[in-house]
């Protein structure tokens, strides 16, 4: 199995990048895929709050931190390195990955690269698609529609919708369904991964007293996300064998 880098990002803020990163982490851990995570929201990352044991906060602009992520891909003993980029840092992160030769290594088959591009409800957000797609020519590019924020992505206007979504034929779409606000907030307060909340546990493994109704909503939401990740074959992508050529 070759090491995989999953980058979750968007240039627009408030589109739910960390929610998507948490959903990816939960799904992969649930499938027994070994994982480490990097939160580029330096110095205090949100992802680290939920996955403190496996998350490091990094500054993607710093060479030392770039080395911490990329020089250890082959030696880290984990299948997946998940990078949650801070708002506005997607283009910068992609340029860094290109400049240090990571994207070339992906083209040569040394690493898998998956980009989860989280879209927002603005033309500016959709314009990012055309700018981003060339960086992922040799990776797997997913446009993530995060409905947690009740966004419509201009689906009510087919012309606008198609003008953006048809620009990147290589990208597949992933939908993150809506989750009840109260359920979302309760998980946030609990400060645990979604699965831990559903299992009615605290962050340190003790029994919690979370509402059954809220746990039920989160469980159903997770199932729908898992169906989406199953549909795009995420497990197959991250367990891809290295190129022998």
């Amino acid at each position, binding site marked *: 199995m070759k090491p995989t880098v999953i980058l979750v990002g968007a240039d627009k803020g408030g589109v739910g990048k960390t929610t998507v990163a948490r959903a990816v982490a939960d799904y992969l851990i649930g499938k027994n895929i070994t994982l480490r995570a990097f939160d580029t929201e330096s110095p205090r990352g949100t992802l680290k709050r939920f996955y403190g044991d496996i998350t490091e906060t990094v500054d993607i602009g710093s060479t030392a931190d770039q080395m911490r992520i990329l020089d250890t891909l082959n030696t880290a003993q984990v299948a997946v390195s998940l990078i949650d980029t801070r708002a506005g840092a997607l283009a910068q992160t992609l340029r860094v990955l290109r400049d240090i030769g990571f994207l070339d290594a992906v083209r040569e088959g040394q690493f898998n690269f998956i980009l989860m591009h989280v879209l927002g409800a603005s033309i500016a957000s959709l314009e990012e698609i055309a700018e981003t797609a060339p960086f992922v020519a040799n990776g797997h590019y997913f446009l993530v529609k995060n409905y947690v924020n009740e966004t419509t992505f201009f689906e009510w206007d087919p012309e606008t919708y198609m003008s953006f979504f048809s620009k990147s034929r290589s990208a597949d779409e992933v939908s993150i369904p809506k989750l*009840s606000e*109260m*359920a979302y907030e309760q998980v946030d307060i609990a400060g645990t991964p979604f699965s831990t909340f559903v299992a009615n546990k605290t962050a340190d493994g003790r029994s919690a007293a979370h*509402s*059954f*109704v*809220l*746990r*039920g*909503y989160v*469980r*159903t939401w997770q199932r729908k996300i898992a169906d989406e990740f199953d549909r795009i074959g995420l497990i197959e992508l991250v367990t891809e064998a290295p190129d022998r050529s």
Partner: protein
Amino acid sequence: MEQLTRVYFCCSPNKRSGSTTTARLLIDYFLSRGRGAVGFDTDPHDPDFAKRFPSAVKVVDTAKIYGQIDMFDRLLVHDETPKVVDVHHRRYDSLFDTIGQIGFMEEAQGAMVQPVALFHVDASPDSLNAASALVKRWPSLRLVVVRNKGAAPRGPDARDILDQFPHAERLSIGAIDWPTWKAFDAQDFSLPDVLKAPPANLSIGALIGLRAWVTPIFRQFQLFEMGLSMENSRFL
């Protein structure tokens, strides 16, 4: 605790099917036997069920998440106290949709809670479709077909349609004459109190009518409970 805690959903997708009457009778049945019971009225606008039992029945708005938490979190407490939910016909679809979304049936099984749907039939095709849909969605759900002979309107094809309802388990609520119904429907009426010590202003005819009406209903409740207990007994 060995016994399961039972949750009775008195329901129908249609109005005037008698589900509130059954919910009332169930609470009366438990109280008249000196047992506690907890009820939920899902009609926040005109909570007739809750008005009858202000200390035992809570009004919940199941369209809102707070209402759902109030009710479902309580329903899953295994305390052997029977719970009775009067499902308002306008909430029928959304309530069972919520039950599906939050995985209530699956969670109940693990929590020693046994949901029972007391499905109130009428002779309309959508009643039959709704009952069939419940059975299809939750094959292990205990579905009891309840026919209130005084409530559900009957058409010429009633018998044919009623014969098509799933499950052999049935409860029958008899029709009630007008003076008896008037007594039963009074806001301050308490069936356990009346049966224990009939008030002076209640006519003998109404009292006899009430007893004649209630006795076979309570006997059916009792037999139904006994049947469930025997099925769930680990020694039989």
